[in-house]
């Protein structure tokens, strides 16, 4: 690892792979940095692994990832695997850990393509052993072919929930029930966006196909469930919920939750970039222009980390950021860049057409945005929604003060699992807009790094200081 690179791309999902390949094909010298041992990101996780489940289980969309990994393998991109980025600075320094030591490099340009994270779905009992996110379940399926054979319930809403259900069924798994929490009112709101969505009908066709698969397997499909509660004595035993005024209970040993994904903003927050509140997707979006450029010179964004659009949108945004960064680095002529960018932007607009419909249909139910008092919100420090509300009563005006009142957001996850919820609760209690309430200040390292790894930080400048310290002690 050398101290200076031309373009560093963070994240080897569809956006990062596309950005890296595009810029490299324009003549830029590119490193692609990713935490995983192989390319693919979350969506195409383990795509290059021989042990992954077949196409018949994971589907055609997943197989599309192989095209990207093939072009990556054929490119001049230098792919640093198993490398965890834990800090990026406005001066375009990147700090990362690999093989037990830390490294610092400086890049002339950076594309941040670190993807999405699952939206937390807090409700009473969601921290019981046996409850996990659907995304975590999908990782087990993609990397190890693991499928629960009995006692599995899926709950929440959103396309990924149906996809995972279908993948489990194809892999021979059994599903006790799929408990959907999409509020009835969402269907009405979504309807007005339907004509727009039909401009790119592929997404709707796939969704209907997944629902048909569930019906074919006679999976119990509960709709408009509310007031979810996971119960059990030290371990999950059942999911309780209300529907049409009646209480229901389904016995289960594994409960997988999903209510959509949101941009992972830890790096962009740590960079102090401005973030806008997206009222439809109910998430923060780091601000960027049509080319993915941020207000920081040479720092670009692409993919779900900048706003949720899915794998195909991420790939297009990656190409755009790759071209734009190559132009900024001078390896792609401005005139040529403009023509190619225009073509990619037009494809992007087409691909984004179904988004308003999907976002309206799968807008999360308010009961998970600001959950009941007895729900643990911050899992690291075990702070409940009721405690957050009590802090507001004591004069706590924002998410950063809740850290001081009760340590929420101060554990190893750095608020990734509670940040949105804490801000939503404060906004709702104080009747203020989210944009005003704001978000946690994110402190580096954005991924934990050990004292030993930090002590072994390598960089050219520090090498001299190192020697003098050794002489002194």
């Amino acid at each position, binding site marked *: 690892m050398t101290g200076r690179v031309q373009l560093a791309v963070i994240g080897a999902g569809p956006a990062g792979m596309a950005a890296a390949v595009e810029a490299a094909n324009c003549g830029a010298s590119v490193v692609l940095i990713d935490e995983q041992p192989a390319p693919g990101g979350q969506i195409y996780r383990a795509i290059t692994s021989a042990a992954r489940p077949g196409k018949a289980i994971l589907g055609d969309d997943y197989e599309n990832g192989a095209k990207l990994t093939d072009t990556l393998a054929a490119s001049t991109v230098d792919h640093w695997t198993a490398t965890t980025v834990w800090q990026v600075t406005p001066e375009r320094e990147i*700090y990362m850990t690999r093989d037990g030591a830390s490294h610092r490099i400086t890049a002339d340009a950076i594309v941040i393509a670190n993807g999405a994270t699952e939206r937390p779905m807090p409700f009473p009992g969601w921290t019981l052993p046996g409850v996990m996110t659907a995304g975590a379940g999908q990782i087990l399926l993609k990397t190890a072919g693991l499928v629960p054979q009995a006692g599995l319930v899926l709950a929440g809403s959103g396309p990924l929930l149906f996809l995972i259900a279908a993948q489990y069924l194809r892999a021979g798994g059994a599903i006790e029930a799929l408990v959907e929490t999409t509020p009835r009112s969402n269907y009405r709101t979504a309807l007005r966006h339907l004509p727009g969505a039909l401009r790119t009908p592929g997404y709707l066709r796939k969704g209907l196909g997944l629902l048909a698969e569930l019906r074919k397997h006679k999976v119990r499909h509960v709709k408009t469930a509310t007031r979810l509660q996971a119960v059990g004595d030290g371990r999950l035993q059942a999911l309780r919920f209300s529907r049409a005024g009646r209480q229901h209970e389904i016995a289960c040993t594994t409960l997988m939750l999903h209510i959509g994904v949101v941009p992972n903003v830890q790096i962009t927050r740590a960079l102090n970039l401005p973030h806008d509140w997206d009222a439809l997707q109910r998430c923060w979006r780091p601000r960027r222009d049509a080319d993915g450029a941020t207000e920081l010179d040479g720092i670009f964004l692409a993919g779900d980390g900048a706003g949720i659009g899915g794998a195909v949108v991420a790939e297009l945004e990656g190409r755009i950021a790759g071209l734009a960064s190559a132009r900024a680095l001078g390896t792609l002529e401005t005139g040529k860049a403009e023509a190619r960018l225009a073509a990619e932007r037009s494809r992007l607009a087409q691909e984004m057409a179904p988004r308003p419909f999907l976002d309206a249909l799968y807008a999360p139910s308010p009961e998970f945005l600001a959950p009941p008092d007895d729900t643990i919100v911050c899992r690291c420090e075990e702070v409940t929604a009721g405690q957050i509300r009590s802090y507001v009563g004591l004069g706590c005006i924002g998410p950063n003060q809740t850290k*001081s009142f009760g340590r929420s957001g101060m554990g*190893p996850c750095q608020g990734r699992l509670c940040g949105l919820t804490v801000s939503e609760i404060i906004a709702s209690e104080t009747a203020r807009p989210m944009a005003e309430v704001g978000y946690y200040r994110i*402190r580096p*390292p954005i991924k934990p790094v050990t*004292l*030993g790894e930090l*002590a072994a930080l390598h960089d050219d400048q*520090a090498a001299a200081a190192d020697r003098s310290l050794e002489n002194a*002690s």
Partner: protein
Amino acid sequence: MHPDVIIIGGGLHGLSAALHLCRAGFRPLVLEKDYPGRHASGVNAGGVRRLGRHFAEVPLSVEALELWHQMPDLVDDDCGFSPCGQMLIAETDKELAGLKSRVRDLAKLGFDHEKIVDARQLRSIVPALSAHCAGGIWCAEDGAANPYRTVSAFHRKVLASGGRVEAETAVTGIKRAAGGWIVETTRGSHQAAVLVNTAGAWGGKVAQMIGDFAPVDPQAPMLMITERIEPFLTPVVGSAGRVLSFKQFDNGTVLIGGGHRGRAVPDDNITALDFTGLRTSAQTVRALFPQLAGLRIVRAWAGIEAVMPDAIPVIGPSVAEDNAFHAFGFSAHGFQLGPIVGRLIAELVDTGACSLPIEPFRINRFNDPATGLS
């Protein structure tokens, strides 16, 4: 009703001054540009330390510790203060000789709170420490407190005692008025007979508005906190030969600080970390507590601190104007002094005199490059 004292800066020193003024019968108003404890007061390492202080600060620090031990009497809350002791370690005999000389000098001034310990005593108090250490200075009654809880307790007590605190109110101008001051802010103007400047890293700017000069260097001392581990350390540990402040909290997390500096941008409320400095901190911990190399750091941050060229604060009256007082520039070790300096400011406002020696902290000890005057 008009306040009779306006305090600029809602950190621990401003709130402490407000509380002591309330107790003396005044009706102070605290103006805070962000929220109380947003900067150094709320995010520091929480050390409550007499150990190792500049000799000029020792009388204040000794008196302050009395107040820390009676904190519930002052603010109805113990502020998380735990008298867990503070240890300053010497790794070599040469370092230990330096510490012994310091303790002798301190004794000549009449202070005996710092005690020399040998290698054996050191290890009995800090068993986790690497075996090579030679000894140290031990202050058994010193300790640590929770900074934000402390600021919050003072804040609540000020409000309960008849004082006012206006958050998100930045001072934009200061003018003399008949019988006092007019302070203009982003939320209207206020008038009072007396002005107190406890604006921390912004203290130099406020001093300038009053007509005084103080060369404040805003700095960003960095801290790191680790994941939780089993209890292994009771006192706060510092080092004579290295930059270190080291403490394990009751919840198992470990705080690593001591003074490596990041970069402060006070105008934007921003600090940037310098990982080369944090790397040195990590190397220091690895050298003194080698068993911790695998411990994960979960967070690093820096506060914005006012550092003076001689590393001691400005405390006392304005030299340019009557009825104006300063307490800022605590140079990254003001937390422990908060309770006492507020009382001294209240004494100055009330009587014009002060019960402890503050002459070394006068604002006119610096040369003003603009006028050449001091």
